């Protein structure tokens, strides 16, 4: 997946909302912006939805760091 900067995307969403709400764009431009915004919000949602819970610990093994699942000791 292409690397999307989440924070930038949120900022873009905000900008698009403001631009659309101003109503100064032509209908065609508005539609383009609308599509862009919906695509972006979908991407953001996908990032959230596709995230997996991972709690790992980096342990040194033979001079290399190895990532292993981390379990809390109760």
């Amino acid at each position, binding site marked *: 997946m292409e690397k999307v900067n*989440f*924070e930038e995307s*949120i900022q873009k*969403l*905000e900008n*698009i*909302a403001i631009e*659309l*709400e101003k*109503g100064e*764009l032509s*209908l065609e431009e*508005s*539609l383009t*912006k*609308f599509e862009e*915004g*919906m695509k972006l*919000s979908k991407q*953001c*949602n996908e*990032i*959230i939805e596709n*995230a*997996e*819970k*991972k*709690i*790992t*610990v*980096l*342990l040194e093994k033979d001079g290399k*760091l190895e*990532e292993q699942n*981390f379990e*809390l*000791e109760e």
Partner: protein
Amino acid sequence: MFVKGEISNFKHHYTGHMYFTLKDEKSLIKCVMFKGYTSNLTFVPKDGMKVMILGTVSVFERDGVYQIYAKAMQEDGIGDLHAEYEKLKAKLEAEGLFDTSHKKKIPFMPKCIGVLTSNTGAVIRDIINVSTRRNPNVYIKLLPVPVQGQGAAEKIAKAIEIMNEKELADVIIIARGGGSLEDLWPFNEEIVARAIYNSKLPVISAVGHETDFTIADFASDLRAPTPSAAAELAVPQINEVQEKISSYEYRFKNALIKKIEFMKLRYQKCMGSKAFRDPMQKVNEQYMIIDNVIKKLEFIISNKVKDEKTKMIKIISKLDALSPLKTLTRGYAITEYEGRIIKSVEELKEGDKIKLTFKDGSKKAQVI
């Protein structure tokens, strides 16, 4: 009474008593701590150690010297640590290690959160609990480090470098639970402050309790009062983020609907306008104007033609009056010799063949 000084000539006698001399730059005094009190010591006294003693002064009659009979003894490093803390803080501050302009922004939604702390205890548990509560699908990478004692500072600094080298996370949390000033000391060491300052990844520090301010806290990009707070600062409340995104979608849709309605209104207004209700009117108006112009043109042209005609008649009659033909009808003739019109007798001699033109034709003749 309390006495502060440095231990020298320390002897732990086989009887269990401790004998030593307490000294500072200007003076010294012998001390003894009897076996009964030594069991309360939290450390092993050594030469060169700075200590604070609670005890009484009395004369040891056999030697005729005053000495301190110590009842309790504590390491007196604390005062020094404070001084060292202030000194280092001032030094690093002057160097710009705490500059706000150098501080990096904590990413709004880091994909991976690197945590440097002990792999046991409440700190990592709190961080994991708070993080997963805010975002159930959080990615936390723990890089275990000792958080107190000898060598901890070096290991913490190294861990920061490792995280940076391989960009193992988007943000680093350096955390430790509460403790005494000595316990927190690794986080007051220069090597840690510099590692934090040099880190390209943003660093959140959460060391000790809310009231503890370590050098690491000043050097970090963001100080969290507690490890739990650090997790809150690093992990966004995911349902809030989702709500925010859907609020944007709502705003887009709304704005577009408004735009379309606005366009519709404009369209209706246009269609309702005179131009669309009676589109031929404008054309007809133009036709009328054209007709008028044509009429005017026709009038001007016919006038002009009339004028020219009268002018021509006048000129023709003038021409007619001046015409040589007219003269010929009155009985004159035109004499030509070799194509030239002869105007004087001098131009002719005897025998010249000439041409005489009358009103109704010409004849050849010869001068005699």
